């Protein structure tokens, strides 16, 4: 349905006001366009990952069902959604009160600032709204041509492999970009250099035995090279398995295109997953700052506090990225304002001194802007999570107690918390899978390895995923992993 609606005047005023404040505090963002949606439309858009036009697929229908049910039962409500795009699009829920809308706007501007300035977003396509629509058009075309069931099934197969990308690869410059020579036809004619000679002299100038000898030599050389090249399509531990499949799997062109669409979208969304804590923390830090210091009227204070508290609420068992992110940014600002960093501070073991430590540096603001530019969640946690912070914010590690089939709190030790958090953030909390060999058993079979870090892979899922890779590669696929320290190999077909 079309939403070419008038944006209410009072909201327009709020928008200008907040935009002005956001600029004044130093945020730097793309032009931001707000759209008003009712809850149904909000659920619709959210089901499609924030993009109003995406390719048709039942998984979005599933999302929609869940979101609608959640809303109807009063379990969840989407307040705000924002798309990393230039201009930035953000959606406001119509039924929200004006205070809520202001809060959301302030929140959104900080998100936009983050999108625009964070290093990890620097390689994303800023016209992705259009790109998504293009993807939709292409896939609709394939549906028209090959039938919806065929395309739908192929998409499910690809989605299963959606995580097999290398989130760092946009930043890696490869020497052999566009170098697909391995694929080139190797069947060239063997040419041997001959000395120039008149016809009747030829057999004396270029004796046949010598020529034959030379030919053998060149041939042997070629064979040796071919031998070396065999199995070379598997680049050393390739993590971007999707790219590999696009390049080398025996696919029809439309299938190749579908995978590349899925891959492109996966890369687009990757930085958002990589910076969930920072992004929400940054946005919460600023909405709180802008609202409380600049925008709020007295009459709005309670509503703001209520909403803000709701967003910041702790739930046992889950880390709230809004809360942890915001507090960590505040902590960093405070530490750099007071000079609580560096060798001198680290080596000070006197608790009282540490508590009193204040060098009046005032570097806090500058520091958090720097952090938002260069870090992703891993760096953010690795660099700035402190023992004091963990204690103050009551972080803990929980484990699954197999016997009782429950999750229990296992430790509040700082090192363990940090380790666990970093583990969860590594590769989006999914096992790192890479391609080691594309010519396994010298029979064109794929050999994948799981970089084992002490946690077993879920076998049923892995098996089903392997099956999906096999469907695309059309040859057997193997995965080497570990189980309780022992090497095991999952094979498909089994």
């Amino acid at each position, binding site marked *: *349905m*079309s*939403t*070419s*609606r*008038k944006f209410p005047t009072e909201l327009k005023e709020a928008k200008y006001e907040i935009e002005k404040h956001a600029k004044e505090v130093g945020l730097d963002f793309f032009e931001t366009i707000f759209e008003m*949606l009712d809850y149904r*439309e909000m659920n619709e*858009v959210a*089901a*499609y990952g924030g993009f*109003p*036009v995406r390719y*048709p*697929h039942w*998984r*979005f*229908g599933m999302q*929609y*069902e*869940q979101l609608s049910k959640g809303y109807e039962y009063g379990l969840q409500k989407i307040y705000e959604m924002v798309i990393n795009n230039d201009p930035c*699009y953000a959606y406001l829920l119509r039924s929200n009160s004006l205070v809520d809308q202001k809060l959301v706007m302030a929140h959104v501007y900080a998100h936009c600032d983050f999108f625009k300035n964070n290093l990890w977003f620097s390689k994303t396509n800023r016209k992705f709204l259009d790109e998504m629509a293009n993807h*939709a058009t292409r896939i609709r075309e394939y549906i028209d041509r090959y039938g919806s069931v065929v395309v*739908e099934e192929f998409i499910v197969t690809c989605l299963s492999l*959606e995580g097999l990308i290398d989130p760092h690869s946009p930043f890696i410059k490869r020497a052999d970009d566009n170098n697909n020579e391995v694929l080139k036809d190797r069947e060239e004619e063997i040419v041997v250099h001959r000395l120039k000679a008149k016809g009747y002299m030829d057999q004396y100038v270029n004796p046949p035995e010598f020529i034959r000898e030379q030919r053998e030599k060149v041939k042997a050389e070629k064979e040796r090279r071919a031998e070396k090249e065999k199995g070379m399509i598997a680049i050393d531990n390739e993590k971007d398995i999707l790219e590999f499949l696009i390049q080398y799997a025996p696919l029809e062109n439309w299938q190749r295109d579908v995978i590349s669409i899925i891959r492109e979208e996966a890369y687009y969304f990757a930085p958002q997953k990589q910076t*969930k804590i920072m992004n929400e923390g940054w946005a919460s830090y600023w909405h709180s700052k802008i609202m409380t210091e600049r925008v709020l009227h007295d009459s709005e204070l309670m509503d703001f506090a209520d909403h803000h508290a709701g967003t910041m609420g702790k*739930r046992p*068992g*889950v*880390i*709230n*990225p809004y809360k*942890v992110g915001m507090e960590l940014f505040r902590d960093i600002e405070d530490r750099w304002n007071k000079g609580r960093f560096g060798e001198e501070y680290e080596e000070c073991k006197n608790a009282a001194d540490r508590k009193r430590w204040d060098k009046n540096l005032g570097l806090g603001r500058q520091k958090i802007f720097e952090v938002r530019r260069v870090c992703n969640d891993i760096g953010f946690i690795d660099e700035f999570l402190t023992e004091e912070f963990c204690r103050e914010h*009551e*972080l*803990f*590690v*929980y484990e*699954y107690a197999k016997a009782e089939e*429950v*999750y*229990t*709190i*296992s430790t*509040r030790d700082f090192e363990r*918390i940090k380790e666990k*958090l970093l583990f*969860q953030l590594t590769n*989006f*909390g*999914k096992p790192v899978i890479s391609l080691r060999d594309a010519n396994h058993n010298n029979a064109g079979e794929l050999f994948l390895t799981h970089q084992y870090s002490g*946690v*077993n*892979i879920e076998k*049923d*899922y*892995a098996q*089903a*995923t392997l099956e*999906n890779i096999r469907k695309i590669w059309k040859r057997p696929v193997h995965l080497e992993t570990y189980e309780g320290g022992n090497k095991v190999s999952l094979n498909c077909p089994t």
Partner: protein
Amino acid sequence: MIIGNAEKDHRRFRDIIKGRIKQDLKKYISHGELIGKRGKDFVSIPIQQIDIPDFRYGHEQTGGVGQGKGNLGGILGPGKSTSGGGAGDQPGRHILEVDITLDELADMLGSELELPRIQPKGRNNIDSEHYKYTGIRQAGPESLRHFKRTFGRALRRQVASDEYDPSNPIIVPVHDDKRYRSRRVIRKPENNAAIFFMMDVSGSMQAEQKDIVRTEAFWIETWIRKNYKNTEIRYIAHDSEAQEVDEEKFYRTKEGGGTMISSAYTLCDRLIGVSFNPEDWNIYCFHFSDGDNLAADNDVCRKILTDSLLRKVNLFCYGEVKAAYGEGMFYKALSTVSDRENLVCSKISSKEGILDSIRQFLGKGK
């Protein structure tokens, strides 16, 4: 900006879900959990969310980082899903509840058990074809415009775009707002059906047996309702005496004492005589017992059946539910009834037997 249509993808998803339910129908049939979730004309069916597989960690080993008070060793909760918050993204099995209409459910049952369509008896054996307006489309003749929906969408659009003026509430639908009814051809025998559920509520019928009866009755009712335009249901509970009760009481009543099945048959016969003329009604009787009847009563039962009941009803079904103390004599007694054309007996030894029993009962297509 144009917002894409989730309706289509949502519908496709629902189709897939229905396929899923159909696949697992056997499981649902033998477990009574559906019945508790029955609304007026739909049931909520819990199904496992359709997962797209990927490489992930086993949930038993992962755990995670949480925030809040609590002692070491404190329990956070059962091995549940804790997905949602960024870093705490644990794999969880989500259960989805899907609403399905009873009609759809009956269709699934019919095709799963390969049930023949019921052939109603008597003179009214004519299918009537009528149209049922079940769907909504975006295109259609103006005469079929769904006023409420169209109005609703127009109102929604106008309110959202600030064109709505409460003091002058004029709603003007544009092309995009319009919705039209779409119809489906329904064939139904232009007939009425009456179902009698009779159950032995004597002491030997335990909760487990009653559960089986309840589940089976649910599916029988769903199927028969599907096949007739009008369906009336009566419940008769009996031990050594019989009385007509409502559904609630039917499954709750617990009596001691002996068992005289003839009491129920006599009452059923009388009720048919009073309210259900066999000329106009297709009558179905389902009787469930553990078969522990008073020995002297068996002959009386046989007599009522052959002399009267079997002549009036489309189908008389006896289901013998295995109980700890039942001897199952009545099943044998009924097998000596001479005219067995519309008498079906079935033994149900456990929940898993429900499916076969339904097939035996309804497989005749009567």
